[in-house]
Structure formats: C-alpha cells, structure tokens
C-alpha cells in the first residue's frame, strides 16, 4: 500500500472530493453539488472528471463504496455512495500540511494574501 505522501500533491479534483465526503457519505451528484457550493460555483466537476477521479481514488484506497444506504424514501438504488477511508483522511491531512507549509514559506518571503 502507498504512503499518503506518495500521492502528493493531490490533483485538485481529488482534494475537493475528499473534502466533500469528509463528514458524510455522498453519491456522485451530491459530491458535484457540494464542491460547487463550497467553492462558490468556481469548480464544477464534470461527470467524466468526477468518475475518473473516483475510480483512481478507489484504486488507491482513498475511498470505498459503501453498502450502508440512507432511508429508502431518500434513496435511488442506482446511486453509489462513497465514504472516505482512514487512508483517505490521512492523505487529505498530508495535503493540508503540505499546503500550509507552502503558505508559511510564501509569507516568510513577503507574499501575504491580498485580503489579509
């Protein structure tokens, strides 16, 4: 199995999908909506990008497809739900660490964010 660091830096779609499933299991379209909402509509994942990313993430063990289904009246049996794995969470944290170190370095060089 890979170490979280082996997968860094994460493609931005991967990182956003991890964040979308961080608090609850979601199906594909819900992930797209969540990502769009959190980025203020800036990132609209296409179906192809989403499922290609999901396929890779499943292979790398960042996600699993879950068998727990929500209440039947909310469910469509065609939907597939994805859950973050501990490895997925560790990888997301590693990416956050990498990014914040980057930010720290940048600040030390005087690159402050514009709306600091």
């Amino acid at each position, binding site marked *: 199995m890979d170490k979280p660091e082996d997968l860094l830096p994460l493609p931005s779609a991967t990182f956003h999908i991890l964040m979308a499933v961080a608090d609850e299991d979601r*199906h*594909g*379209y819900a992930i*797209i909506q969540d990502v769009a909402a959190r980025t203020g509509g800036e990132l609209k994942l*296409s*179906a*192809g*990008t*989403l*499922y*290609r990313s*999901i*396929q*890779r993430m499943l292979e790398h063990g960042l996600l699993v497809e879950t068998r727990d289904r929500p209440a039947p*009246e*909310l469910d*469509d049996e*065609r*939907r*597939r739900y994805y859950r973050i794995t501990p490895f997925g969470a560790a990888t997301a944290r590693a990416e956050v660490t990498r990014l914040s170190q980057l930010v720290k370095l940048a600040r030390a060089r005087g690159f402050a964010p514009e709306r600091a």
Partner: protein
Amino acid sequence: MPSYNVKRYDVPSYYQSLLLLYPASFRAEYGEEMRAVFARRQRNASGLPGVAWLWFAALFETLWNAAAVHWDILRQDLRYTARTLGRTPGFTLTAILVIALGVGANTAAFSVTDFVLIRPLAFPRPDRLVKLWENVPSYSRMELSPANYRDWKRMSKSFESMGAFTTQPVNLVGQGEPERIDAAAVTAGLLPTLGVQPLMGRLFTAAEDQPGAAGTVILSYRMWQSEFGADAGIVGRRLNLDGVPSTVIGVMPREFSFPVSDTRLWIPAALPEVLYQDRNNNFIEGVGRLKPGISLQQARAEMNVIAGQLERQYPKENFRTSATINRMRDELSQKSRGLLWALSGAAICVLLIACTNLANLLLARGIARQKELAVRTAIGAGRERLVRQMITESLLLAFAGGGLGVLVAMAALPLMARLVPNTLPMAGMPAIDARVLLFAGLLTLVTGIAFGVGPAWRMGRGADLSGLRGGSRAGGGRKERLRSALVMAEIMASVVLLVSAGMLMRALWRVQATAPGFRADGVLTMRTALPTPKYAADAARERFYASVLSEVRRLPGVESAAYTSFLPMTMGGGIWPVSIKGENLERAGGDVASMRFTTPGFFKTLRIPLLQGREPADSDTSSTPLVAVVSQSFVRKYWPDGNAIGRHFLFAFSDRVVVGVAADIRVRGLEQDSEPQVYLPYKQQGGNFSFYVPKDLAILTTGTPEALAPAVQRIIRAADPEQPVSNVRTMAKIVEEQTASRTVQARLLGGFAALAFLLAAVGIHGLLSFAVSQRSREIGVRVALGAKPRDILGMVLRQAAFVAVAGVVPGAILAYQAGLAMQALLAGVKPNDPPTFLAAAALCVAMTLFGSLLPAWRAVRVDPITALRAE
C-alpha cells in the same frame, strides 16, 4: 426531494455516443451514474445557449477524461504485463528474439529495396525524367550516335529539354599522386535537364560545350571534400585533367550523383564535328525531361515517328533503328530488381513464420494461463479488459522485438547494401532513416496485432468458470487443431524458403562453374589509361607499352605480360560490325564482334588456347598487312567449313586477314552471351580508335599476384611519372565479382531459410510437447489398458508425420510457383529442380523427426498411475 429517477430516454443519444469513447469496463461501472449526472445538468441548464454550452463542454471533457482513463488502464496493463512476462523470461526472450529477427530481416530488406527501387531519385520532378536509347534488333538499349541524338533533339516536341553524356574517366595530375577519376562528359543541356543547381559556382554554358573551348570542370561534393578539403575558394582554380588545364566552375550538391554513384566530376562533352559523321558510332546516352502534360506513351510514339523518318533518310546506317524511352527510375536491370524482390519475399516469409510461431506460443501460454484468466473473470474483470490486456501484452512484446529488430537491421545492412547496384544516379548508401523507421514501426504494429489478436480473442471467449475446473482436458481439440494448422503453415513457408534458397544456391554454383574460357589464377591486372593529346601519337603509346612490358617481364616470377583494350568481363561493349563480303555493314544486322587491340603475350597471360596460327605480333605494324586473330565462334559463324587462316573480312573500316584462331572467352561475363571475338595487333590502330587504345595490363606470375603490384607501379611511374594507375586487382577478383551479388543473395536467402527452418522446428516441437502433456491422462489410460511403448511412440510420430506432410505438400507447390516467378535469377536451373526439392523435403522430414523426439520420449515415459492420480 426531487425525484432522482432519471430514465435512459432522458439522456440525449449525443451523450450516449460520447460515452462510447470510454473503455467498456469504465462505462459499465460508471456509465449509468454519468448519464444521470448529465441528464440532471441538462434539466438545470437555462435555455438553448445553456444546453449548447453544456454539450460543447461535455465533448471536451469526455475527450480529455476518456483519454486519461485509457491511459490509466494502459499503465496498469503495462505494469501487469511487465510482471507476468518477467515471470516467464524464457517465453519473453524467445518471443522478442523471434520478432526481432522477423522485423529486422524485413526492415533491412525494405531499406535496400526502397533505396534501389522505390524512393524517387534526388532530382526535381523525377517522374518527368526519361532515358533515351536507340533500339536496334539485337540491342533494345543501344547508346546513341551523336548525329542521331542531335536529330532527335531537333525534331522532337515532347521534351522540355534534352541532354546527353558519356562516362569518361580522366587522369588528374598535380594533386598528389596522379589519379584516375570516374567522370562524365556532359552536354551543356544535361545538368539543366536534370534540374539541379550547383552548390556553388555555375553550370556549363553552351559556349563551353564547343570543341576548342577552354577546359572547364564541375566537381562533385565528395570530390570537393576529399581532394580539396572543402576549399571555399575552389571555383576558379585550375586542374590538370588528361593534360588539359581546366578551370573549376562549380561544385554540385552533396546528394547529386550522375550517371552513377561513383561519378566524381563532370566536364563538357564538346563533341567535335567529326563525331557527328558516323551514325553507327554509338557512345552517348540521352536524357530528356518530358513537357508537362506529355505522357511517356506520347513521347514514345513521337520518337518512333522521328526514328522512322531518320531511317528513311539514312536507310543504311539507321537500318531498323527505333527509339527506346524509359523512365529514369525504371532503368535498373531486371536482374537487380529480381534479386531485391526475391529478398523482400523471403523476408516476408520469415516474418510470417515468426508471427505464426508467436501466435502458437501465445496460444499455448493462453491455455496454460486459463486458470489465471478464469480467476480474474471471477473477481470481475470483463472480457474486454482481458482481451485488452492481452493485446497490450502482444504489442509490448512486438515493440520490444521491433526495437531490437531495428538493431538487427542495422547489423545486416552492410551485407544487404552490397546488393545495391552502383549504376544508380544516387549518392550515398541505404540507411536506417525516418522512412525506414516508420516502416519498421508499422510492421511491428501489424505484427503485434497479427499474432496477438487471434489468441487474445480466442482466450477472451474461453475465459469462463470452466477454466477453474482444471484437469488435463483444458485446451481442448479446437485449439490443438488451430495450433496444428499454424505449424503446418510454418512448415509450408519454410519449404518455400528452403527450396528457393536451394535453387539460388544451385544457380550460383552453376554460374561459378561456368568456364570463362581463360584462366584467372596468378594474374594481376591494372589500368593505365593513356590520356590524349599526350599519347595521341602511335609512337608515344608504343614507347610506353614497350618500356613497361619489358621491365615487367623482367620482374622475378613474371611469366608473361600484355596490354589489351579491355580485359574480359570489365567492359560490356566494344563491339564492331563484321562484313565478310564487303556489305551488310549495319550493326543492326547482328553481325558484330567484340574488338580488342592487344600486345603479344595476351593469350599466354590469360592462357586462352590459340588453336591455329599465331597471335598479334610486334612485327604487325601500320606498314604491314592488317591482320586479325578471331575466335572459334567467329569461324563457326562465318566460315562453317572451318578454314579461317588466310581469309579476309571487313572490320573496323579496313580489310583484315585472319592469321590465328583462339578459343572463345566470355567477354561480357559469366552469365551473358558474348559476341565472337576479334583481336587486332596494337600497332595497327591507325589512330581512329581512341576508345580501344590498350589500357589494361595483365601479368601472369608464379608468385602471389597481389605482391607484385608495388613493383609494377614503380615501373609505370618510371616510364611516366604523371601516369595514374587504377583498378589494381587480380583477374580472379574480376571473375569473382561476376557472382558477387548472387553470392550475397544466396547467403541472405540461405540465412533466411535457416532461420525459418529453425523456427518451424521450434514450432513442431512446441506443438507436440503440448499435445503430449495435454494428453498425458489419455496416454496413461492407454498404457493402463495395455498399450505398448511402440504404440504410444507411433501415436506421437503419426501426429508429427501428418503435420509435416500437410505442410510439405502445399509448400512444395508454392515453392514451384516461387521458382517460376524468379526463373530469371536461376541461370538455367529449372524451377522443379528435383535435387533441391528432394533435399528440402528430406530436411523437413528430418526436422519433424528431430522435433518430435523429446515429446515422444516423454509420452513413452508417461506413468499411468501418476497421470491418473494428477486428476
């Protein structure tokens, strides 16, 4: 909560078809969800512009993502393949080697064939360039006489321009050692007709192409590099060519070469008016550039009308003379073509066998891997993924082999390049360039698909749970039949190659065994071409010959030495019309003989039997009667009663009396028919035959001929320090060169045949080993039921014999067809040559037996208890 239920019909077929770009496995996994997402997006899209944008975006994201998914799978498959291939290094190495040999043989054959036969000549619009010849009854491609050339050029309307040339080696003095240089004398129109601009300087003007004009010369790139160190100030320098000071006016570009690859410089032809008088003095070659829109047929028709007019005008000299017009690209001899096509055919045969063998290997491997495939199917790999992975495997093998094959081709190229005739107007040699690499790449791709797809498809179909059941029946009869058919095909192709190679070998031996009519051993030869005007006077030449020959004859070990116009097999032409009663003086009538001026000692040096009378002597001079020695065939043709001595004939402008009869020699070469020969005394040239001035020196020695060369060269330098010596070689070498291309070809084809034979042996061995291992249970049962080892042996050998016979019989029929196709190369060996066919068949039977030995041994040793317990 809005309904998430999205039905298929909500999704436009547009998006459905986009999804087809994804691999089927990905589509099966996520297609439904993706359609749902797209349908949802479309419903939320605002108005027509929104939907249009969505569709537009979907196209691009699908192209990008589908490519990415395919790439992911490819990477996975490559990793997996590398792992599985690494586990079976024997199989992997065999497969790569087999492909490397197949692709290598074809790449090398292609690079030579392409260079010689296919790629356009390095002139602008090369398809418009034609070669012009006179067409007379015995020679369809006779050089032109200057007079006919001038009339053709004046009267024809089909050509943009026309030029003429003749090869004319020159002596270069004053640049280090005096040197003999291959050169061509060209009319002012020739280089512009070819359409080539000089690299520096300019081309010849019409004024420079006039008799009496100051000497000028254009250098080839190679000459400029090698002799003058690429001196940028070369234009304007003066060279001493044949004793004439000549100004360098230009240098041609590197890729330009004309008329042959060895031509190193060009001088103006500047034909004097006297050469336009005799229409039977044929020595120049014509080149024309067709006008746009004029076809080759139109030009031929026009030229034949013109030739007809000229024949009416000059009925005697132009008797039955028409025109031959060929595209310059098609000028190559039929033999050179045949050699290369035969080689390419053989290479393709080798590749076919290689592919067959690989398909067989992969089939066997697939059967052995059935369990693995069944496991992968069981854990959810679709058939498409399995097939795809297997094709990746075969392509990976193919490209590894193809890469190695290019190296094989590079190694084989120097040998193959010896098949390139030097009569091509091309500089350089065939090389592995982008064009050849592209060919190798395509070939490798086709190979990978050819040997990979069949087995992959079969396996994909067979990969179901039955593979998990195991047991020795895995494989089954159908696959074994297919494998048998593949081995039969291999045997068939190797029979074709064996027979073809065998016939070519026999043809080579036959040609080598041809008696040339003279003896070549112990003879050293070299050429001292005496330049005019320095040696225009008979006396000057005679002094030179006398001084050189008397010194050479005094060297230790030298038995005899002589000068002649051209040594046998070094000069195809040099013929002259013969007239017995003073009429029929047209060369068209077929009454021609080769003419050579010789010094005394010529017959002794080459050990040509002098059957009657005497040889040309020092005492035969311009003031004594003109005499001649003729060959036996000459006597047979003109004086069938056999009495030749003392008879007269008209030859080379004069009446001559026969003083001797010599045995026939093969003047033109081992494989060509030669005209009867006439030998004239060197002192009776009368100054009219500058082309025939004796220039070839032959020396018979008791020692090693090569060792004599330095001493002879010293003698020549002492006689004339400015006289270059060229073509130093033994007579044996000259004869050997007659069969050089045949030898190379027989060796190559023999190599191919050996390769094919080996591959077929591997194939038959593999088939039988596999069959025996698959049938070990059946064999066990048979043994348990009382079968004797003899019966088991018979069973295996019967299968081997069946496959062998089924391959040999159609192979022999095809080989006969191949023999018919290359009859021109066979030098009289019949395409049904019994010894060759018998030998090939015997070899195949031996191979079958040999290939079945080990499997048969294993079959006999099958222990019924072990075989049955394994179930």
